[in-house]
C-alpha cells in the first residue's frame, strides 16, 4: 500500500502547486474582504429560492435554531454527514436534548459516535481506532456474536444498518465545503455517498457552515476542487462533489416512517455560523485562519500531531496547529492556550497548506496573546533571551561549563521545569566576534562578492568554530567578509511569544541589514532558524508596526542566504574560487526543518558533494524534535526525543560523519545517537586547499 506521502506526490505530479495555491489564497482573501456583502447576497438568493437562512452569531444560536426547527416540524430522526462546524456548535447534543435521535452516517463519525468519542483528525475522524477495536465496538453495539473481521464486511454492516435510517429520517444535516453567494449553492465533497442520501431522502435539509466558506461565483469553486482532494487524501477528486441549491426536485418521500411525523413539504435551511469568525476577519494577525479549507494536509506532516494524535494535540473539535487557531477564533481561548505549546514552529506544514496559511505564525501570535493575558514564566523569559545567556556565560565559561555539565544543576533545572537530562551547550570564552576582531579583516584580492555575516547568538557564544569555518570558507571562495552588528534575530523571543521584544530587534536589524544590503553586501546566516526569522517571519512580525510594507524588508528577504545555500549558488554561478582537496569520507546529512520550509533543504548535501571523493547520504525529511527550547522544557522533552527517534534510527543506518545545520539539531542528534555532529562548512574548511 502506497504511503500517504507517495500518494500525495503522485497526485501532485504535473501540477503547478505554487501557482495554484497562490490563486486559492487570492480568492479567499478577496472573498473574506467582501464577506459582509457576499453574506447579504447569499441570504437574498436563498430566500428568493424558497429556502431559509439563519445567520447565527453564536454557537448556541446555531444549535438552538436547528433544535427548535426539529421540534416545530415534529422531527424524531436526523441523519447527519460530517460537519466540523456542527461539532463546534454541539448540534447533536442540542437535538438530543429535545428528544431527537441523531445518526452520524460518515463511517468514521459513526464509529466514534458508537464509541462515545470525539474526532481526532479533520478527514479521518476515527484514525486513532484499530480495526480490532472497531470489530469489538460493532459486536457490542450491534449485538453480534460473530462479527465480520474484514474492513469490507465491517463497512457493509454499516451500509445495511444505516440504509433504513436514511429512508426513515425526517431531517438531514450536512456541512458545506463552499457556499456560492451568487447562486445560493452549497458545495459538498465526499467519498462515501452519505451526503447525497442525507440531502435527498429526508424532506428537510439543513446545511450548517461557517461564514468564511462563502465564495462569490460557481467559477471560484473550480480551483479549490483541484487542490482540496489532493491535499486531503491524495485523490484527484473525491467520489462525489454535490452542488445543492435549495431543495431537490423530487417530491418528499414518505417511506413508511415509524416516527409518525407529519412532514409533507421539502425545506432547505442554511445555518451560517459566525461564532467569532466575523471578529477574526477584522483581526489582521488571526484573519488567515479563516482561509482554511479543512483539508488536513498540515496534520499529515506535523511531527507532534502524528506522534500524539488529535485527542492530545487538539482543541475539540479542531486538531493540530490550525486547530489551535480555530479554537482561538471560536472563543475557546483556554483550549488554544492548552495546546499552543505543541506547535514547535518547525514550519513543515507551511510547505503543504493549499491556501498558504502560516500556521506557525498563528501559533506564535496566540502564544504572545496568552502570555499577555496570563504572564510569562521565568523559564520562558530565560529562553527568550538567548543573547543575554551568551553575554553572561561566555566571559565566565571556565566556571560555567563545568557547572552546566555537572549534576549540581539538576535541582535548579527541575525548579525551572527544564528537563535535568538536557544540558545547555558549552560556552566559549572567545566569541566569534572577539576572534574576528583579534584576527582583523582578511584581505581578499579583487573580491567576487561582499558579504556580511549575521552573527547569531549561538554561533557567537557556543559554536564559534562553525563561524570561523564559515568565514574562512567564504573568504577562500572569494567573498570579502564583514560581521554585521545586529541584535538577536528574535527567534527565541518569538518562540516564547515575546513579540514586542522581537519587534524591537527586528526593527534594528532591518535598518542595519538594510544599510548593508544597500551598500552591496549579501547577508549570510549560519543558523537556519535565524535565516527563517529574517526571511520568513519579519514581514509578519513587523506588519503591525510602522515598518509594515517597508521596502527594506523585501530587500532583506531577497538578499539573505543560508551559508550552505550561498556557497552552492557560488559554485553554480561559477564565481566561487574554492579549490577543494579530496576527502574520501562518508557523510550522512540531516536537513533542518526551516531550510526545508524555505526550499533550500537540499543545499547542505549539495555543498558536501562539491568535495571530490565525498560520499554523501541524505536521510528522509524528518524533524529532529528539538526545535529550539521545545526539547528543554520538562513537559515536552520526552515527546521531543520520541519525535526524533525515527531520525536517529535513519542516521544510525549509516556510518560516517553526521552533518546537520543549526544548534538545535546538533544537540538533539548528539544526544539521541551519541555521535558527533558537524556543520557542512566545518567539513569544507578541512578540504580547503
Amino acid at each position, binding site marked *: *500500500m502506497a504511503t*500517504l506521502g507517495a500518494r500525495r506526490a503522485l497526485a501532485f505530479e504535473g501540477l503547478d502547486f505554487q501557482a495554484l495555491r497562490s490563486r486559492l489564497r487570492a480568492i479567499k482573501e478577496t472573498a473574506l474582504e467582501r464577506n459582509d456583502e457576499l453574506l447579504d447576497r447569499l441570504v437574498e438568493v436563498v430566500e428568493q*429560492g424558497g429556502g431559509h437562512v439563519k445567520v447565527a452569531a453564536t454557537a448556541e444560536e446555531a444549535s438552538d435554531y436547528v433544535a427548535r426547527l426539529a421540534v416545530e416540524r415534529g422531527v424524531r430522526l436526523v441523519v447527519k454527514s460530517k460537519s466540523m462546524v456542527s461539532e463546534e456548535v454541539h448540534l447533536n447534543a442540542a437535538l438530543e436534548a429535545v428528544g431527537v435521535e441523531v445518526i452520524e*452516517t*460518515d*463511517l*468514521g463519525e459513526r*464509529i466514534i459516535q458508537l464509541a462515545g468519542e470525539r474526532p481526532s483528525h479533520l478527514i*479521518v*475522524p*476515527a*484514525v486513532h*481506532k484499530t*480495526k480490532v477495536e*472497531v470489530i469489538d465496538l460493532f459486536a457490542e453495539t450491534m449485538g453480534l456474536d460473530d462479527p465480520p473481521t474484514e*474492513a*469490507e464486511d*465491517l*463497512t*457493509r454492516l454499516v*451500509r445495511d444498518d*444505516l*440504509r433504513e435510517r*436514511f*429512508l426513515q429520517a425526517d431531517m438531514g444535516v450536512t456541512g458545506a465545503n463552499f457556499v456560492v453567494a451568487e447562486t*445560493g*449553492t452549497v458545495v459538498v465533497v465526499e*467519498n*462515501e*455517498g*452519505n451526503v*447525497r*442520501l442525507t440531502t*435527498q431522502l429526508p424532506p428537510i435539509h439543513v446545511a450548517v457552515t461557517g461564514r468564511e466558506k462563502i465564495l462569490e*461565483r*460557481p*467559477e471560484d*469553486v*473550480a480551483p479549490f*476542487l*483541484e487542490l482540496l482532494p489532493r491535499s486531503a*487524501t491524495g*485523490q484527484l*477528486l473525491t*467520489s*462525489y*462533489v*454535490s*452542488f*445543492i*441549491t*435549495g431543495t*431537490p*426536485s*423530487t*417530491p418528499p*418521500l*414518505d*417511506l*413508511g416512517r415509524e416516527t409518525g411525523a407529519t412532514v409533507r413539504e421539502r425545506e432547505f435551511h442554511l445555518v451560517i455560523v459566525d461564532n467569532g469568525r466575523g471578529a477574526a476577519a477584522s483581526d489582521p494577525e488571526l484573519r488567515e485562519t479563516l482561509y482554511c479549507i479543512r483539508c488536513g494536509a498540515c496534520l499529515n506532516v506535523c511531527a507532534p500531531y502524528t506522534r500524539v494524535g488529535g485527542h492530545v494535540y487538539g482543541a475539540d473539535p479542531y486538531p493540530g496547529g490550525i486547530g489551535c487557531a480555530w479554537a482561538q477564533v471560536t472563543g475557546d481561548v483556554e483550549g488554544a492556550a492548552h495546546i499552543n505549546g505543541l506547535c514547535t514552529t518547525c514550519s513543515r506544514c507551511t510547505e503543504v497548506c493549499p491556501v498558504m496559511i502560516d500556521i506557525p505564525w498563528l501559533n506564535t501570535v496566540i502564544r504572545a496573546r496568552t502570555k499577555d493575558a496570563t504572564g510569562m514564566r521565568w523559564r520562558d523569559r530565560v529562553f527568550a533571551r538567548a543573547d543575554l545567556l551568551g553575554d553572561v556565560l561566555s566571559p565566565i565559561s571556565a566556571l560555567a561549563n563545568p557547572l552546566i555539565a555537572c549534576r549540581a544543576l539538576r535541582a535548579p533545572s527541575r525548579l525551572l521545569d527544564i528537563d535535568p537530562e538536557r544540558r545547555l551547550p558549552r560556552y566559549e570564552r572567545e566569541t566569534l566576534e572577539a576572534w574576528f576582531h583579534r584576527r582583523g579583516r582578511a584581505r581578499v584580492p579583487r573580491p567576487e562578492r561582499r558579504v556580511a555575516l549575521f552573527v547569531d547568538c549561538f554561533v557567537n557564544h557556543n559554536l564559534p568554530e562553525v563561524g570561523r569555518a564559515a568565514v574562512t570558507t567564504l573568504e577562500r571562495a572569494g567573498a570579502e567578509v564583514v560581521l554585521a552588528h545586529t541584535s538577536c534575530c528574535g527567534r527565541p523571543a518569538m518562540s516564547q511569544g515575546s513579540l514586542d521584544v522581537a519587534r524591537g530587534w527586528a526593527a534594528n536589524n532591518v535598518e542595519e541589514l538594510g544599510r548593508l544590503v544597500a551598500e552591496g553586501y549579501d547577508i549570510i546566516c549560519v543558523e537556519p532558524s535565524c535565516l527563517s526569522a529574517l526571511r520568513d517571519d519579519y514581514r509578519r512580525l513587523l506588519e503591525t508596526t510602522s515598518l509594515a510594507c517597508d521596502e527594506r524588508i523585501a530587500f532583506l528577504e531577497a538578499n539573505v542566504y543560508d551559508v550552505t545555500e550561498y556557497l552552492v549558488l557560488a559554485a553554480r554561478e561559477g564565481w566561487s574560487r574554492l579549490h577543494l582537496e579530496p576527502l574520501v569520507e562518508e557523510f550522512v546529512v540531516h536537513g533542518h526543518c526551516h531550510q526545508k520550509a524555505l526550499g533550500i533543504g537540499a543545499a547542505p548535501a549539495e555543498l558536501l558533494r562539491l568535495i571530490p571523493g565525498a560520499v554523501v547520504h541524505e536521510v528522509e525529511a524528518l524533524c529532529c524534535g528539538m526545535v529550539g527550547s521545545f526539547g528543554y522544557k520538562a513537559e515536552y522533552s520526552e515527546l521531543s526525543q520520541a519525535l526524533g527517534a525515527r531520525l536517529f534510527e535513519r542516521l544510525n543506518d549509516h556510518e560516517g560523519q553526521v552533518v546537520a545545520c543549526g544548534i538545535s539539531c546538533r544537540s538533539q542528534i548528539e544526544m539521541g545517537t551519541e555521535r558527533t555532529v558537524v556543520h557542512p562548512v566545518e567539513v569544507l574548511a578541512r578540504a580547503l586547499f
Partner: protein
Amino acid sequence: MLPLSERTSMFAERLRAVGGVPYLVRPPDLLDTVAGLIDAHRPVLLTPETAWLASELDEWGIEAVITSAAPAELEPALRRCGAGVTGCVAAAASTGTVLVGPEGGGGGLASSLPERHVVLVRESDIHATLGEVLSVLAERFGELDGEAVLITGPSRTADIEMMSVVGVHGPLSLDVVIILAEGA
C-alpha cells in the same frame, strides 16, 4: 485540443484508475450492454432522461421504475432497486469524472441509492479537463435546476485503519457506457 479518440482513451484509463468500468459501444449495441449490466440487479431505477429504456428492458423482463413516477409507485421500488441508469451532462477525461444533472426530477436517487450505477455518456460530451466540465456546469447552472453532482468512481472510504474499501453508502460499482460517435 485533444482529439476525441484520445480524450475517450484517457477518460477510460482514468475511470479505471478510480475503480469505475468503461464500456465503449456503438449505438446499436447500447441496449444489450445496459441490459447485461443490470440484469442481475433488477428492478432498475431510470430517470426521465433514460426512461426510453423502460419499454426495451421490459422485453428483457427487467422491471423499471422512473424516478418521476408518483410516490405510490416510486417509494416501494426505492428499497428494492439494485441498479440505476442515468444520463450525463458532460465528462472529464483528466479525472474520469462524469457530471450528472438532476436527472429530470429524480433528485439524484438513481445515481446514489442502488448498488450499481450505470451512466450513459455520449462520446462527444467527453471534455479534456475537469476545468472545462466545471465551465459547462457554471454556464448551465440555472437550467440544471441547481442540482448537479460530479461523480468520480464508486463510493469509497478509508476510515478503518486507512484501508481503502470500495462501496459504502453510495453505489458499489460505477459502469460508464460510452456511446461512440457515429462512424467511429
